[in-house]
């Protein structure tokens, strides 16, 4: 199945990618997606403890299982205001 991955702010700058379309296995959760990403872009690895995740424009736990067509966003710590 396929998901769309979105990266923001410094995660985008470090990976050089703002959006990726990825094929993932059935039953994959968001954490496994992140781990794969951090393997491909080792500069992202330091964010493993602090990254947040949103699925289809709602905050979601990293343990959420992904479905075909999901939009998954990884968010570094925020600094609005």
């Amino acid at each position: 199945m396929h998901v769309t991955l979105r990266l923001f702010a410094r995660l985008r700058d470090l990976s050089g990618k703002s959006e990726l379309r990825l094929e993932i296995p059935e039953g994959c959760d968001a954490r496994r997606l992140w781990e794969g990403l951090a393997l491909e872009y080792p500069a992202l690895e330091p964010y493993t403890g602090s990254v947040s995740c949103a699925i289809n424009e709602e905050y979601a736990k990293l343990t959420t299982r992904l479905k075909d067509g999901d939009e998954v966003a990884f968010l570094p710590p925020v600094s609005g205001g």
Partner: protein
Amino acid sequence: MSPRFGVSSDPLNTAQIAAVSGGPECGAVVTFVGTVRNHNAGRPVLFLEYEAYVPLAVKSFERIGGEVADRWPSVTLAIHHRVGRLEIGDASVVIAAAAAHRADAFAASRYAIERIKQISPIWKHEHFEGGDVWIEGATADPGDEAARQVALERACT
């Protein structure tokens, strides 16, 4: 009437945002405007760029509006954040809280800015003489009750 919550690259219209939240039973409107400072962490700042995950940011403002309504039922809240390049002195965020009584309006607007800094998917890219840095604060987790308690404490409740 304008929407109560928004993210846009247009300059923020404070008066229009504050007007959203009044009404004949309202006795107090507290408006918070965050502006770009010319220095941060001891460095002179040249300009900022704000980025947002826009649909989720607007939903986070709606969530904060709901938290405020639960805690302070008389309060009407509006939150608008700007994105893109902002110069020194530009407003980055405007929060307006209208209420029958001033204590609620003050508490709700302070609570709202604390929550934005905790959970809204917005990032500040600071450009200074000779470099730039992404500012990173809190790991966004709307379900983190300890963080919400900190926001309530800062709102002096």
